[in-house]
């Protein structure tokens, strides 16, 4: 019977090419776009190497120093005394007048090191500087490399995939050893090849020779905490930056909470620390504020050009979800519409089938099956399209360093969603038709 439903479904689809084309186009195109969007989302926010623990991370990219300005407000109370004389009381209060002097920036190593080492609920943390570029010269060619100065814990927080060699350790950092972890791409650019034999070789970065200790796979996204070309021990950075006692500097911090739920605790501790921070008396600001956030919050804050991470998240994602819902609704309504008209168009067929012995269940199954076949074919086309586009985008670096991955899990999730709509849109009209009396339908 199932084989028969299948043959019939295919026959029906083949006999109505235009209808089939429209349906398939709707299904496959929607599915393709959804796959691309989720693949993009997964690339940006998913738990992929080297951010496998992204759901436990709290990012502290910068802090804000600010001074609030106050106006002195005089209040005068006039009181009539018993003897008819007037008495005046005046009070003076300071009220913020809404204007503020502020500036944002990354932090100094000493500020992070002195204040943020002992937060509770933190599994691991790292301080890193990502704002340097070093030129290396090779056969007259200049290779510019984004250089990250990190501590040894950086490699605990971020699980880079080491193709060859190992990360540098705490001893290297303490001793300020000139060692480097480089990406595969830089290995190819600089040495002409990436292989195990590159480990141990020297490269001249700026004026200093560094020994390569590890080669990592190029990360699939360009998050500012991981998108370096070369990673060096933090102690090898320009000494003035390492020892500066200013609050500002080129560093930021990433914390890995003991569990995703503890991220809020870390954020609260940072806020508390900032509120109670003792500003040096000679400073030209009065308060500091630290903007920490989860990966999505930081992304949104960055994109929306605001420092309020919570608000940025709402500002970015609510419109995004509304748009996505609208985008989904249109083809799905179209699908429902097509299904409804298709079932009603075949009213007499249903009646004939019933006259020759089909019961309501047979009719229902037949239409459900047709919908399933259609959805699966559409899904398959969508899958192939999405796969091709992802390959194309990746091969041509269309969105920078970001690599789109193809998630089978997500694909099946969307097939389920579309199936659900296909079923709902098919079942209701088919059910109604399967209930009509044959005589009425044949009249």
């Amino acid at each position, binding site marked *: 019977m199932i084989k028969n439903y299948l043959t*019939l479904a295919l026959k029906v689809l083949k006999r109505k090419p235009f209808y089939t084309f429209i349906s398939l186009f709707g299904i496959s195109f929607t599915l393709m776009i959804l796959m691309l969007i989720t693949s993009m989302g997964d690339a940006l926010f998913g738990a992929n190497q080297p951010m496998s623990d992204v759901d436990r991370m709290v990012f502290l990219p910068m802090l804000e120093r600010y001074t609030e300005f106050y106006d002195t407000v005089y209040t005068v109370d006039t009181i009539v005394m018993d003897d008819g004389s007037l008495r005046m009381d005046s009070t003076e209060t300071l009220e913020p007048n809404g204007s503020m002097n502020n500036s944002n920036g990354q932090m100094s190593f000493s500020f992070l090191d002195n204040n943020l080492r002992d937060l509770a609920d933190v599994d691991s943390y790292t301080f890193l500087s990502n704002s340097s570029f070093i030129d290396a010269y090779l056969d007259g060619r200049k290779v510019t490399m984004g250089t990250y100065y990190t501590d040894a814990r950086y490699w605990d927080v971020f699980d880079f995939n080491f193709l060859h060699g190992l990360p540098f350790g705490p001893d290297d950092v303490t001793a300020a050893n000139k060692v480097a972890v480089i990406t595969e791409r830089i290995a190819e650019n600089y040495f002409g090849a990436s292989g195990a034999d590159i480990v141990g070789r020297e490269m001249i970065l700026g004026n200093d020779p560094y020994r390569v200790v590890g080669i990592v796979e190029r990360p699939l996204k360009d998050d500012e905490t991981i998108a370096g070309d070369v990673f060096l021990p933090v102690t090898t950075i320009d000494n003035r930056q390492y020892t500066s006692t200013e609050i500002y500097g080129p560093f930021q911090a990433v914390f890995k909470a003991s569990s995703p739920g503890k991220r809020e605790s870390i954020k609260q501790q940072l806020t508390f620390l900032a509120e109670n921070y003792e500003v040096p008396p000679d400073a030209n600001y009065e308060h500091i504020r630290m903007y920490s956030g989860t990966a999505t919050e930081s992304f949104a804050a960055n994109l929306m050009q605001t420092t309020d991470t919570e608000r940025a998240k709402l500002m970015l994602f609510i419109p995004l979800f509304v748009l996505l819902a609208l985008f989904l609704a249109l083809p799905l309504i179209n699908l429902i519409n097509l299904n409804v008209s298709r079932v009603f168009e075949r009213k007499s067929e249903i009646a*004939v089938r019933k*006259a*020759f012995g089909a*019961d309501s*269940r*047979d009719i229902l199954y037949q239409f459900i099956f047709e919908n399933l076949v259609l959805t699966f074919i559409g899904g398959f086309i969508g899958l192939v399209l999405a796969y091709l586009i992802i390959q194309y985008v990746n091969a041509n670096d269309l969105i920078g360093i970001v690599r789109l991955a193809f998630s089978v899990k997500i694909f099946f999730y969307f097939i389920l969603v579309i199936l659900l709509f296909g079923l709902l849109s098919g079942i209701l009209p088919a059910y109604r038709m399967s209930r009509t*009396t*044959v*005589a009425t339908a044949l009249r």
Partner: protein
Amino acid sequence: MEIRGKGAKAPRAPFTPYPPYPLYPFKMIELQNVSKSYRTDTIETLALQHMNLSVPAGEFLSIMGPSGCGKSTLLNIMGLIDEPTEGSVSLAGKEVTSYNGTKVARFRNEQLGFIFQSFHLINDLSVVDNVELPLLYRRVGTKERRRLSLEALEHVGLSNRAGHFPTQLSGGQKQRVAIARAIVGRPNIILADEPTGNLDSHMGDEIMDILTRLNTDLGTTIVMVTHDERMAKKTHRLVRLSDGERVS
């Protein structure tokens, strides 16, 4: 005879289940006091009034009457595709008035074959697939279904058109396919609603010949609604209706 279950074997030469009319004294169709009314919000239309009719097995009965006299309603009630407002219907010795759902679907499948004035073939299916329909719902295996369908098509002289689609056929051919579909499941009763109504007289005669042959060779009980006096004369008995009542 019953064909049941996947791959069930049908007998090889089953086309003579009953001796020819009038040797079989068994009431194949029995209507007692059947009435049918259609109700809308404001008016009630009586389509059939207290109809009594009994059709012995093997009879070829025709029903005539002016348009709207209730002929088709009567046929639909006999075919269990419409329900009487009151009265009882017995088919093939079974009281079927209370049948519903799966039971009525199964009964229609095994005992009844329909032929409609406008053929009602499924255009998406080939001729042989159309003919197979009753066997499909009887869960007969693919090969057996195909064999029986080709046999039925042969019976109406259309085995060379098995792979065609209904839209490629003439009216007369379509009606012959419809007859093949009606007889493929070897039903005891065939109900034909103006089977020659959409055809010219030559093709109409051909269809009548097939039906007559079906009746005499196989003993199938046939009830035919018609407007054509000439066709009605070829049947065993004629019942005339007027305003939902029997007049002869």
